Each structure stands twice: as structure tokens, then as C-alpha cells.
């Protein structure tokens, strides 16, 4: 019984924070371009289905457990400053934006008409539309 009360409060908090957060924006073209970047630079460690291998999973339950409710800017920061792990910060800003868009789409977030930019990701939160 006490567990149920805690759970209910947790749901309320999640809804509240989701309501305040802006969803991520990106286009299908960005995601498609990001897939090309991913295959070349990320797949070796994170797997051909983003399932994880030497690197952590970038899609599915495991990824969403870690990233739901977090800022897209934090995901971009980690990707940009630390990846690929052997050559961090070696891709262009555009490539990093695209690969983040690809990861988001792989986690069920749908593309739209507005592109992801260095500005829009600052206010966006990782949450399904």
C-alpha cells in the first residue's frame, strides 16, 4: 500500500516535468544523415542495431532508462566531447547533430519539420511525443 502511494506521486512528477519540457525537434533528413555517421563512427562499439557492445546501448529500454527526462543538450555534449572515444570531437557540429537525431529516432521519437540546431537542443528534453 505505501508503495502504491509513492508510485502515484512519481507518475505525477514525471507528467509535470514532461509538460514543462520542450520535445526534441529534428528532421527525417537529419536522422538519415546521422545513420551514415553512425555506421562509420559508432557502430563498432555500440552495435549495428544500437544495442550496445563494448559501448553502452543507444536504443531501447536500457537507453531510455538512462536518458528519459534528461536534456538533449547533455546527450549532444557527451557525444560531441567524448565520441568517438578514440577521436573525440573529430566530427563536424552538423554530423554530431545528425547522429543525435538518429539516436532519438531509434528510440521512438518521431522526426518533424523543424530541424535540430545548437539552439533548439538547449531547451529540449528526451521524451517521446
Amino acid at each position: 500500500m505505501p508503495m502504491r502511494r509513492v508510485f502515484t506521486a512519481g507518475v505525477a512528477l514525471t507528467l509535470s516535468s514532461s509538460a514543462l519540457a520542450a520535445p526534441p525537434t529534428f528532421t527525417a533528413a537529419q536522422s538519415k544523415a546521422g545513420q551514415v555517421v553512425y555506421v562509420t563512427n559508432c557502430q563498432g562499439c555500440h552495435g549495428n542495431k544500437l544495442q550496445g557492445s563494448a559501448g553502452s546501448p543507444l536504443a531501447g529500454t536500457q537507453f531510455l532508462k538512462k536518458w528519459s527526462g534528461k536534456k538533449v543538450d547533455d546527450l549532444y555534449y557527451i557525444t560531441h566531447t567524448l565520441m568517438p572515444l578514440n577521436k573525440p570531437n573529430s566530427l563536424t557540429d552538423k554530423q554530431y547533430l545528425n547522429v543525435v537525431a538518429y539516436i532519438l529516432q531509434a528510440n521512438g521519437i518521431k522526426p518533424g519539420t523543424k530541424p535540430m540546431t545548437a539552439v533548439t537542443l538547449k531547451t529540449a528534453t528526451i521524451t517521446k511525443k
Partner: protein
Amino acid sequence: MQHRTRSFALGLSLLASFATAQGLGPTQAELNAADTSTNWLMMNKGYSGQRYSPLSQINTSNAGRVQRLCTFNTKDPGSFQATPQVYQGVMYVTKGYRTYAVNAVNCNVIWQHEYKPKGPTVLETVRGAALYNGMLIRGSGDARLFALNMRTGKVMWDTQVADSSRGYFTSSAPIAWNGLVFMGEAGADWGTKGRMHAFNAQTGKLVWSFDLIPTGNQLGANTWERAESTTTGGGSLWTSYSLNPNNGRLYLSVGNPAPDFAAQYRPGANLFTNSVVVLDARTGKLDHYYQQIANDDKDLDTSAAPVLYRINGVPHVTVATKAGSMFTYNEATLKQTYVVPTLRQVNLDKPATREGTRICPNYSAGSQWHGPAYNPNMAALFVPSTDWCGTVKLGEVRYVQGQLFFGGSLSLDPDNTAIGQVVAFNATTGRRMWNYQVPGTRIVAGVTTTAGNLVMSGDLKGRFFILDARNGRQLWRYNIDNAPIGGGVATYDVGGRQYLAVAAGNTSRATTGPKPVPGRIVVFGLR
């Protein structure tokens, strides 16, 4: 009520499982003798971590005739850094969330267990298990410790060690002794704050903990001049541990501080990071420690387990680090005997900068998760290491829970500039005896030495090699399907015949190509 019934049934089932495991070894007596056993009972063979076998059927005169006998293929890529552990003809292998019992002669699978993670996975790397009284006890990518029945593969108990959503996991091969099993926390690169633990080996209940990042009134807390930085201070136990069963001293290699590169964020010596820490295994109380690098800003861990041995009857401990240094300490006087480089060292005394500081070795080089092997007949140490450079840069310090927390970045030189090495040293003096090199790739695999005067290891191109321990001359080399060798070489006896088993197919962070080779155990011997 229904829940209580199920719990009762589960309890009975666990009790039955435990009962069937009782009476099986390895017993405490067998573990005490593991260093000189013809089995391979721990990640580093025995409590001393020497990786030495008294077997000599395969030796310098016939090593060139070794042949591949059988293969057990895990059929998937991923981290594979364990040494096959062998007891009474059965090989126990850990890979990711799976555990296998395999016939050590013909590679047939006896049982297989797949663990379903209960929390987020940080890294699936698991470097082995503790085998103890019919139980196989191991860690997981979601920071748990669980026991399987060695006969059936059924779960006997399952304990949470730490919260993996904050970056903790349990990659070490635990060791067991006198009713306790020892397991520490990994995850410094994710901004964790490490602890070492002992658990009751029969129940999985916590017995004691030791804080690797001291705070408050704890010894060493004053080496964190900015106390707030201790909350993400690092200090991991990545690999395995050593133990002196005669006096109950437990030896730990404690890894890097966090954030990895931003030393200015955590001024002070940052104890007990990059240190060998010696605890009383019964109580978890600190006995003594040796720090190798204070206030590290290059992620050059003390990571591989220390190796324990005696020189002229005097106990010594040696540890090889990612910085490419090998430290030896006299355990009677608690003084350093010598420190020697295992490879080229460039700019290690220069600070990391925003513009970039070129360093050798880089954080994926030096001695990684395997340390020296010790051959008591020769009083010699054989150290796996990689000579490889890179450029470290300071950057923004931003903590995102459960994510890498570097405070900068490190670019690695091209893979083909790495030079893998096995370097032999006189253990008494630290004088270099010989150096076997494989230009163009890394050596991260465990080194094994034997009474047959052999030194065996492998490289990341999949080449398993056997050397003459006396001079480093290559006696034999064999490519295991281009599968990068990240685990160790085990050697053991079944039915009076000596075998070699190699774990290959490691998918390694930062250096794996787009098509990683699946994991496999290959068993070799003389026909």
C-alpha cells in the same frame, strides 16, 4: 498469501540448490593451493595473482608442435576479457551477462546461464568469477553480485552491490576466502565514488565495506582539498584482487580519480585513487597503502591486480600501471624496492591543457586489466603492456548522471602505431631481461608462465604466441581467426594431459573496427 507461498517455494528451491552445491569444490584448501595447482581456479590462477603453472608437459622443446584441438564459439561480439577458469575438467567462462560451463577437453557446453539485468547496464565487461564450494560467484554490468550452482548453472543468490543508474558496475573477477567473497565497485569514468565490499559467500549478505574515496574523519580525507569533489571522486576496482591467505591481507588496485582529466576540479593527492590498498580481509580495515600517482590528470590507472611473491623469503608486491610503470614494494619494510618503466614515457609530468598535451602512453595503453606474471623458478616478472601515444585535452566539467565524466578528452594515435609488448624483468633488481614486441597492435591479454619455461599471451590481431621465458624467443604463434585476444591464457591438466585455453574475440572500446569478431574459447594441446 499467494506471494508468500511463492517466496516459500523459491526459498526451498534456493535451499535445495545450495544443498546440491555443498560438498563440491573448490574447497578452501584447494583455493589455498591454487597458485601451485594444475587447475586454473581464479582469474589470475591463485590468490597471489602470479599466473604461474607448475605444468611442464608442454615446454620449450615441443611448444612448436601445439595444435588447435577444439573451439567453443559464443557467437556474438562484445567485451571478452576473462581467463577461462578450470576445475576438475570443467571450464567456467563469463562473457557479458552469460556464464558457461564447458568441457575443458572437447569444448562441449555443459550448461549456460543468461542473467537478466535488473538495472541499466553501464558496461557488460566481466573479467571472471570466484569458484568456491560448488558456487560460481560473479558480477554484472548492472552492479550486482550473484552466485550460480557450479553443477547446474541455477541462481543461488543475487545481491545488489551499487546503483548502476549512477554509473556503477561490477567488472572485477571476485575472489572468495574463508566464507567471504570480495567484490568492489567499478565506474570512476562515470563519476562514481568507489567502495570495496565483502559478502557472505553462502548468502550474499554484506559483511563489510571500505570507502576508497575517504571523507569526514576517515584517513586520507584531507587529500581531497575540495571536499565537494569527493561525491564523484572515482576510485574503481576494475579487474581482480590478490590475497595472502596466511595473514588475511587483501590487496586491491584502485583506479583513477574522476573527472579523469580535470585535476584542478579535485586538488590534492586524491587518496586512495591510483593506489595499491591493503585491507584486513576479515574486517575491511586499512592495513597500509602505496600510491602510484597523486592527483592523476591523464587517466593512467593502477588497474591490474597486484602480484604477490617472495624474494629470498621476503614478501614483495608488484603492480604494473597504465602509465607504463612497474612498482615493487617490500612488504616487510613497506618501502618501495624499485620502479621501472615498461615502455616509452613522454610528458607524463606535464599537466593536461586546453590546447592539448601529447602523452605516451595514452589511457588505452600501458598495462590495462592484466598485470605481471611471476615465474618463481626464474624469479622473473613478465609484463603485458602497450606503447601507444595520444593527446589529452582539458574541457568542460559537466556531470550528467550515469554518463562519462571526463572533464576533457583524449585522442588516440592511429591503432597501427601501437606496439604491444611482453617485457621480462628480474624481480629482485628490476633489471630488464628481454622485450618481445608486436608492432602495429596492442597486447592487453593476460600473460601466463609455466615450469616448462614458457611465457604465453596474445595480441589484438588474434595471434596467440608462446615464448621461451629465458630469452623471449618466439617458439610458436597461431592466429585465432583474427579474433582480438583480450582474455588470458589458462593452462591445466585433465587426465594427465596439459591443455592451453585462450579467450579471444574481445570487442574493445575505442579500437574496434566496424565488424567485430565474435568471442570464442580455443583449446590447444599436443596430439
